[in-house]
């Protein structure tokens, strides 16, 4: 291939023939904006952001699809190009919700908004989970685009949750085509493509089948390459941008695929592909399962020692002491059952320990379990008293057989029935919580690097084995660093390769990790017919408690629930709230009452799905039960005839102002209701509100409907037209704060419904204390409605973030992510029904 010379923006450049103008420009260090282009994809020319001027060429060709020719004169920056690109961007944003750019309060909000996204965050315009990483937004900010003048035409798609592992919000899609192109590149025949034409064009599967039925193998490449928040990993969705990315190796099966581990605050978010080529692809267990395994609530987190019927948590020294005594007392052959997916160093140390105690090491394959012939043989030896003690680093043996040994030690990451009979249990750090090397089935030695923190007291097995050996008085285990062990490992055999490649077929993934059925840990795997043995945590409690009569996702992430709770319904008054616990293990979370029916004994609530508790509630289906509903709580709003009452609601507050509007109207007031949302398609219950007020006004942060802005803008507009005698504002802390600041200057008495962290809701704990006029008050019994001009907002905002970290940590735990899959129960409003 020959070298071609050309000039771009006056720079003389030499590149290989076949290079595109875009590539040439990048090589020269010039930046041309683009969204559909990706270094690992072939040129596509869809977004038209990368247009350039080429001397002698008519119009504005896209640089990503134009190959260089000798002597080409290219201009990448000009006024005309800027205008053109801005027009293109504007067109894109007229179909893509853009409050993240256009909201008049964006900068202020950024300051108020804590980094991690979670339930107690101060501002709540949370329709897109990808804000911190959105390439589209970044491009718009770089372009200096200030005005978005085109009208917005959003498609208002329902959030798609029919499939395991992924949430798809096509409201955010700009049709860059990266997803189906990467799918085609990796799998040959793409499972997805652009369906429909023109205005109705969108990404989808053939015949609108679910991804599961359309041949998708859930490699996750589309999620990782999507430049917007359209395609998201349901597990990591609200966790925010990863702060660490490490190249390591997946240990879930003998294949040992290279992965890029991504974590935030020491918690693994996902194993992603190290690149976007066919050989980089991962199986669904690696891509979506690894993080769920590490953050499973079934992890063992503390050393445990048996005392009678109980396993008692103890410190490490005590555990080692007890274990070495136990092994000595067993006085006979010890067998070590070690998973073949254990790191080379750890297998070496286990073997060394086994031989130093004249024991035996059995290597257990990925799919090995208690029924394995090798284990059956061992069981017989234990019965005959030939084997006195067992050390296992997985669930490879039944609890009954383990119980027949004189001593048994489990060194593992996950709880199993073995905990019922084991004499001692030590918590192990696994996968990317530890380091070392791994020999994959093809014989290659690959690096294991740390990217995640082990839970609780868990430690790497190499440390555990060394300490245990030392406590047994064995020599040759004095290793401070792992490298010293690595140097000793020699001639280790690679594990047996899997018969079929799990990356080719989603039904071929390994079903066990260290003997534990993976579907017991990663519930969504049930969708792939992987064996499940444990009853799901989520199952219990759904049959007891308060009946959930109706559940609708009225707008993405916002759920409307109607619950049978007569004792609340009969006494409910405007302004009060109820405390809900989806399950016995849930938090007590307060939600404002949106409506109630005294005769029917029902209450209705609006729940925004952000934190774990709200997710748990959202995962329930009509006909199931909510474990606990308690209320009505808080003092009701004082309803008097004051003249003109302005009620402003944002987010869940749109629902919350409804009963207030009705009561103020009944009391003879002129009632003006104002509602705000990031975008028009996120507004809800407008018809219901319109019925109980004299005037309904709408504000959107992107200007897609009504006034451009929020409640603050509406208040300031209305107050110029007529006198407002009373103002009541319900919404995120940030919005309430902003509006009260404004009404203070306008001299309008203003009340707000505060939403601090609460536990019991009956005055008992004091978590919800707020400063009103420098006096401490409890929002649950003295509020939640307070004079907005007397609130210490700084304190409130800071107190709300007190558990930020834990909330993010709790987010993925135990929530039955499988249940969050959209179920056509008839209550979802889509008209379809399952079965």
């Amino acid at each position: 291939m020959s070298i071609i010379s050309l000039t771009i923006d006056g720079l003389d450049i030499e590149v290989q023939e076949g290079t595109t103008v875009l590539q040439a420009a990048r090589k020269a260090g010039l930046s041309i904006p683009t969204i559909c282009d990706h270094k690992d994809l072939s040129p596509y020319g869809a977004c038209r952001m990368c247009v350039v001027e080429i001397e002698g060429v008519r119009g504005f060709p896209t640089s990503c699809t134009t190959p260089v020719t000798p002597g080409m004169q290219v201009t990448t920056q000009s006024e005309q190009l800027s205008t053109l690109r801005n027009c293109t961007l504007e067109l894109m944003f007229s179909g893509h919700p853009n409050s993240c750019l256009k909201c008049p309060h964006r900068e202020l909000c950024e300051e108020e908004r804590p980094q991690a996204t979670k339930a107690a965050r101060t501002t709540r315009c949370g329709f897109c989970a990808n804000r911190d990483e959105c390439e589209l937004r970044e491009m718009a900010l770089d372009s200096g685009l200030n005005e978005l003048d085109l009208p917005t035409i959003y498609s208002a798609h329902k959030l798609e949750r029919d499939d395991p592992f992924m949430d798809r919000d096509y409201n955010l899609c700009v049709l860059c085509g990266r997803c189906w192109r990467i799918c085609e590149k990796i799998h040959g025949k793409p499972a997805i493509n652009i369906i429909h034409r023109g205005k109705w064009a969108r990404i989808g599967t053939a015949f609108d089948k679910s991804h599961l039925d359309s041949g998708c193998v859930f490699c996750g490449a589309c999620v990782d390459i999507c430049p917007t928040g359209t395609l998201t990993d349901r597990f990591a969705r609200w966790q925010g941008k990863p702060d660490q990315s490490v190249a390591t190796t997946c240990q879930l099966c003998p294949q040992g695929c290279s992965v890029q581990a991504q974590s935030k605050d020491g918690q693994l978010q996902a194993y992603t592909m190290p690149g976007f080529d066919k050989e980089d692809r991962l199986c669904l267990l690696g891509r979506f399962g690894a993080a769920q395994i590490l953050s499973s609530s079934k992890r063992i987190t503390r050393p445990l020692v048996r005392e009678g019927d109980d396993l008692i948590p103890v410190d490490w020294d005590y555990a080692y002491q007890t274990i070495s005594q136990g092994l000595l007392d067993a006085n006979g052959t010890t067998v070590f059952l070690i998973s073949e997916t254990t790191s080379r160093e750890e297998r070496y140390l286990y073997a060394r320990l086994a031989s130093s105690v004249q024991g035996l090491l059995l290597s257990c394959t990925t799919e090995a379990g208690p029924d394995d012939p090798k284990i059956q043989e061992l069981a017989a030896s234990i019965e005959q008293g030939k084997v006195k003690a067992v050390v296992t680093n997985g669930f490879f043996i039944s609890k009954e057989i383990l119980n027949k040994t004189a001593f048994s030690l489990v060194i593992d990451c996950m709880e199993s029935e073995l905990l019922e009979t084991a004499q001692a249990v030590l918590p192990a750090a696994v996968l990317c919580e530890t380091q070392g090397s791994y020999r994959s089935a093809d014989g290659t030695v690959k690096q294991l690097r740390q990217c995640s923190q082990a839970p609780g007291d868990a430690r790497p097995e190499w440390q555990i084995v060394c300490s245990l050996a030392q406590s047994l008085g064995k020599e040759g285990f004095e290793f401070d660093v792992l490298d010293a062990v690595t140097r000793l490992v020699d001639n280790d055999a690679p594990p047996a390769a899997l018969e079929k490649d799990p990356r080719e077929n989603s039904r071929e993934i390994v079903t066990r990790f260290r003997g534990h059925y993976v579907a017991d840990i990663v519930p969504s795997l049930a969708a792939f017919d992987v064996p499940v043995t444990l009853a799901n945590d989520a199952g219990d409690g759904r049959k007891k408690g308060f009946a959930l009569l109706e559940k609708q996702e009225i707008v993405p992430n916002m759920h409307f629930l109607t619950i049978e709770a007569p004792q609340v319904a009969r006494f409910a008054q405007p302004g009060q709230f109820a405390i809900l616990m989806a399950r016995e293990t849930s938090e007590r979370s307060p939600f404002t009452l949106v409506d109630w029916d005294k005769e029917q004994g029902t209450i209705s609530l609006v729940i925004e799905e952000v934190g774990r508790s709200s997710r748990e509630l959202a995962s329930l289906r009509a006909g199931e039960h909510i474990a606990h509903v308690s209320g009505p709580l808080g003092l009701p709003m004082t309803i008097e005839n004051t003249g003109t009452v302005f009620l402003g609601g944002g987010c869940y507050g749109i629902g919350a102002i409804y009963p207030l509007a009705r009561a103020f109207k009944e009391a003879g007031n002129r009632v003006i209701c104002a509602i705000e949302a990031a975008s028009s398609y996120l507004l809800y219950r407008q018809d219901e509100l319109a019925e109980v007020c004299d005037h309904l006004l709408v504000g959107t942060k992107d200007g897609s409907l009504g006034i451009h802005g929020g409640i603050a803008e509406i208040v300031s507009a209305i107050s110029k037209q007529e006198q407002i005698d009373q103002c009541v504002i319900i919404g995120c802390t940030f919005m309430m704060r902003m509006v009260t600041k404004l009404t203070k200057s306008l001299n309008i008495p203003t009340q707000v419904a505060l939403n601090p962290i609460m536990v019991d809701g009956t005055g008992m704990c004091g978590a919800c204390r707020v400063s009103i006029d420098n006096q401490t008050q409890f929002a649950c019994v003295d509020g939640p409605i307070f004079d907005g001009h007397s609130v210490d907002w700084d304190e409130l905002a800071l107190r709300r973030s007190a558990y930020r970290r834990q909330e993010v940590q709790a987010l993925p735990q135990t929530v039955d992510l499988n249940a969050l899959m959209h179920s056509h129960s008839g209550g979802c409003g889509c008209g379809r029904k399952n079965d």
Partner: protein
Amino acid sequence: MKSTNESVSEVPQKAKGRVKIPRQPMPEQDPRRRRTNFEEVPRGYSEEVAMLEASRCIQCKKPGCVQGCPVNINIPAFIKEIAEGRFVQALGKLKEYTALPAVCGRVCPQESQCESRCILGKKGEPVAIGRLERFAADYARQNNGVPENRHASPTGKKIAVVGAGPAGITVAGELVSRGHEVVMYEALHLAGGVLMYGIPQFRLPKEIVQYEINSLKNQGVTIHTDYVIGKSETVDQLLAMGFDAVFIGTGAGLPSFLGIEGENATGVFSANEFLTRANLMRAIDFPRFATSPVQAHRAVTVGGGNVAMDAARTALRMGAESTIVYRRSREEMPARGEEIHHAEEEGVNFHLLTNPVRIVTDENNQVTGVECLQMELGEPDSSGRRRPVPVEGSEFIVPADTVIIAIGNKPNPLVPQTSPEIQTSKWGTILANEETMMTSKPGVFAAGDIVSGAATVISAMGQGKIAAGAIHSYLSK
């Protein structure tokens, strides 16, 4: 069950000989080990040790211990049953007086009640009444031994019990066994009150509380949880609904704060919140249970009562360096001696004669320490305790990222707020006749912390017992 005759035969039969048996120590979890777990600290007597300890009781004709007991348990009678190996019958004797023997055996301050009156204590050590009570209850629970219930024919009377804490449980137990219909209302999602939310697992396993609640249900008591009387029905409405009497045992559920600068900072908790998260909401099992635990590294607990000990020891178990700040000296601490001793053993630091004057915070309003004043003891105050006086210029800062305020509780306002006819004191406690526990409203009774302010489980039970007796006579009129 082992043959009991053998063990008995080992016991010297003459009273004189028996007295020589030393008080049997309670087996306890090693402090070094227990500070990392939430398992119960005292492990309980074995059958043999219980019988040996029971044999120490000389069965006084005029037993002082019974007078010392707020619910007047016939202590010699139940101890005799244990001494003779009839453990289930021993529980039967206890159940005649207390609804919660397994609880009282664990959390009562016996050293200042029954055991302080034991005649053996005059010259040596008193009989370990509390440990024996616990043994009898645990034995029956673990061996499914159910003592015969007292059966009474239904009276047709219906009582509403508001609040399922120690007082309410006592009242419910007493009244249901006298043939009345009892309906309990509990605001939280689990019945038990402070036994569930306040007292930690390592002092009172929650399974025991739920066992006792279940046995109430088995006796026919209806319990509505998630039911907030005062927000749903008021007391008046309960009476109108056909209840013949209403008992209010809603407790002291409104935490007091110091009223010092910085107290609303992030990282300052009431002991109620701290303990409720850990116990009722089971944050100690986070993330299996969704409620966030308080992740403390340096926890400072302010106060010197049992609740302060519970909070400090819980913080310790959750991995924090745990310090108690108390403005008087160790002698004045209202906590039980055993609790203070356990806390010391486990490594809780004590800053005594230290008075917090300000919470120090960083720019994010997060706690970084507690500014304290050194105190010295002055003249005795109205409580008879020597009043602490500040040493001038002695300010110093105890570093902390978590501050737990354990200085007491005020009565919960939910019921009094909505029942204006029921007279309350200026502190918000309900005024009740000491002999009947009847409030100013006929047919409405109250007992426990809602009447006495913040006191102990057993005193609430004692008052509950008085109230139950009075309700029974009121209904029998």
